[in-house]
């Protein structure tokens, strides 16, 4: 996965459907060979458009896409040799499963015996060896999904695109399929570009996640980096659970800044990540699991008193909603240990957190 081993490169890509507004604004993105890259974002963020441009179904308005360093803007979809799993699988209903799988081989004029062999191999890979004679309508959702994956792989493409492939499945099946797809990716050394709006799916499967919003990649990083070190308020908020505190920078202390929370609710010491100078506004981002309830005095730079408004018992932890610094939606995940068993709704306790766990980011909205 070295930097110069790029399979796909988007260079200065812009896309507009109506000539009035840009759906994709100046996109630059590299996908390394063997990488599992997820494009994550809310609907309308431009992620599917990017995938469709890569597949060749939408022309780029400006810029160039390179596949193995060859510009492909003028290459029609059927010559790109990219596998794709569609949102609703797009299995051809008038063909059997085996015929569906044989289709890409047939149009490539691969002879019959090899065709059969490869179809069988692909079906075995998704554990559907016995289903070759069925019609798509006779398959369950999960089976159809696997067939769609098998079909996208049967002609050995270097790159496979997946457009929300698990969206139609129920939760259990979805989680199971996430692992299956991940295993296939690892076993075959595929390069996958995956589109989803489900952040947990993105976190589970990806090597890297590109977070889309408003036609721009907000951040592109491995899951743990994205979660631990979001670079802006959108990413912090979109990935995982997040407490937000809004305020104004009152002091710059090198690595840290002091931020006065709106409404004179106190001053927080936070890690300086993405803020302007003193006087600028900032959004503070703090993960619920990084908050300590009833900390030892002096052990944390930020300690505030909070009133427990609501406790939800979730087994391994207790999800507690506090009113802190004037925000009544401050969530804290308290590990289920005897220490905090006494906490009840309405209690007021001290809560605190470290400066490096609290990231001072751009002022959103």
């Amino acid at each position, binding site marked *: 996965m070295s930097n110069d081993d790029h399979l796909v490169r988007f260079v200065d890509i812009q896309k507009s459907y109506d000539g009035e507004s840009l759906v994709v604004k100046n996109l630059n993105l590299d996908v390394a060979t063997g990488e599992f890259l997820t494009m994550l974002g809310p609907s309308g963020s431009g992620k599917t458009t990017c995938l469709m441009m890569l*597949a*060749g*179904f939408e022309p780029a308005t400006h810029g160039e896409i390179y596949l193995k360093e060859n510009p492909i803007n003028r290459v*029609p*979809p*059927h010559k*790109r*040799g*990219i*596998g*794709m799993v*569609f*949102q*609703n699988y*797009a299995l*051809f*209903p*008038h063909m059997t499963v085996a015929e569906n799988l044989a*289709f*890409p081989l047939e*149009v*490539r004029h691969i002879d019959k015996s090899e065709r059969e062999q490869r179809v069988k191999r692909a079906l075995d890979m998704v554990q559907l060896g016995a289903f070759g004679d069925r019609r798509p309508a006779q398959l369950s959702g999960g089976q159809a999904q696997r067939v769609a994956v098998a*079909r996208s792989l049967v*002609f050995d493409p270097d790159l496979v695109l997946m457009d929300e492939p698990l969206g139609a499945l129920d939760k259990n099946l979805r989680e199971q399929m996430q692992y299956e797809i991940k295993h296939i990716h690892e076993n075959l050394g595929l390069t996958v570009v995956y589109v989803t709006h489900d952040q947990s799916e993105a976190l589970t499967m990806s090597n890297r996640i590109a977070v889309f919003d408003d036609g721009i990649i907000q951040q592109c990083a491995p899951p743990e980096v994205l979660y631990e070190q979001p670079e802006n308020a959108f990413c912090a908020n979109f990935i995982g659970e997040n407490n937000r505190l809004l305020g104004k920078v009152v002091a710059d202390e090198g690595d840290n800044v002091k931020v006065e929370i709106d409404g004179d609710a106190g001053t927080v010491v936070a890690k300086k990540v993405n803020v302007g100078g003193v006087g600028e506004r900032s959004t503070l981002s703090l993960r619920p699991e990084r908050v300590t309830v009833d900390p030892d005095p002096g052990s944390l730079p930020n300690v505030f008193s909070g009133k427990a408004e609501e406790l939800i018992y979730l087994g391994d932890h207790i999800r507690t909603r506090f009113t802190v610094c004037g925000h009544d939606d401050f969530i804290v995940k308290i590990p289920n240990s005897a220490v905090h068993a006494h906490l009840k709704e309405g209690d007021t306790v001290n809560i605190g957190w470290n400066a490096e766990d609290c990231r001072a980011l751009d002022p959103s909205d």
Partner: protein
Amino acid sequence: MSAAPETVSGPLITADGIPLKESLQKSLRRSKIRAALLVAPPLLFLIFLFVIPIGNMLTRSVDDKLINQVLPNTFEAFESWDKVSEPDETMFAAIYQDLKAADKTDIGKASVRMNYAKPGWRSLVKRTARKIKKMEPPYKEAFLKADDRWTDNEYWLSLGIMKDKRTMGYYLNAVDRTYDFDKNVVHVDENRKVYNLLWWRTIQVSIIVTLACLLLAYPVAYLLATLPMRIANLLMICVLMPFWTSLLVRIVAWMIMLQQNGVVNDTLVAAGVLSDENRLAMMYNFNGTVIVMTQILLPFMILPIFSVMKTIPPSYMKAAQNLGATPTLAFIRVYMPQTIPGIGAGCILVFIVAIGYYITPELVGGKDGRLIGNMVAYHMQRSLNWGLAAAMGTILLIVILIFYWIYDKIIGIDNMKMG
């Protein structure tokens, strides 16, 4: 809770002691009655407007009762006749009795029927019946005085065709065959053969029109299904416009377009494509029938195909191309097969409508563009030979059923989608 349930050896019983089955039936009865009431009006409608008329048609196409009721003695005498010698007094006496006893209208109807067997019977019977009151024996002489055709054995012989209460004569007539006097099936004279030609032409026209409609409708339906809503709606209005226009207006418009001195010919001559003497004959012939029927029946093809295409997500075409098929190949291998239910429905619809069409062929068919439907209409309205019309209607029904059966064999009727 503590009390053990009774043994379950007997039938299951509900809480109030009524057997479960009975209780269930009771609760279902209401919904059954309601369902029956709901179905009743369309069912009655179907019986009155479909089953009864078709039953009536089948009966009429073979019925030959009346003649046997009117001339019972005559047929009895006919049986003992040697069919060679000149009819004798007993036969004349028999027909005298029958004609004298019969109701005037029955004689009228019978004479019409007899005329189908042998032209001339009608005026012979009528002229004789007019004088029957004043006749005295010997009847042979009296009959010959009334009309000298009574000596012509052919009239007498033709009775043999009508002696049964059921006849296949109308069906034979409808396929250019007839009974000879011994009730053998024979071809009609060469110069009277009309129906087989018309049957063949009707099927030919129906198939050509169906194929032409398919060819024209497919791209239109595709456009309708794929264009943006706003433009598609406009196009849809254009497709449906003919439905809102009187049939006659449309046909007349075609006449103006296609006749020898019509718009199309004038344009072609003006453009120098045709010389003035070689104007195309596109109207009042086979071509005219095909062209106009195709236009009129086109919506019947477009709509079912469109409604099927509308349900095909564009992702199939994308998937096929993504898998390596050229757009053309993707269309042929992936898109078209999925439209077959619509194609099937459209073809069956157009074919069935076309095969019974008669207004258009009547107006634009001229000498060789008229179809079997025109003959059915003619025999219903003009010649009043309802037996023959019914026989032709029945054959039409059978032809349609045969094509339906072929369709079922090839494509499968479950696969048909009307929309």
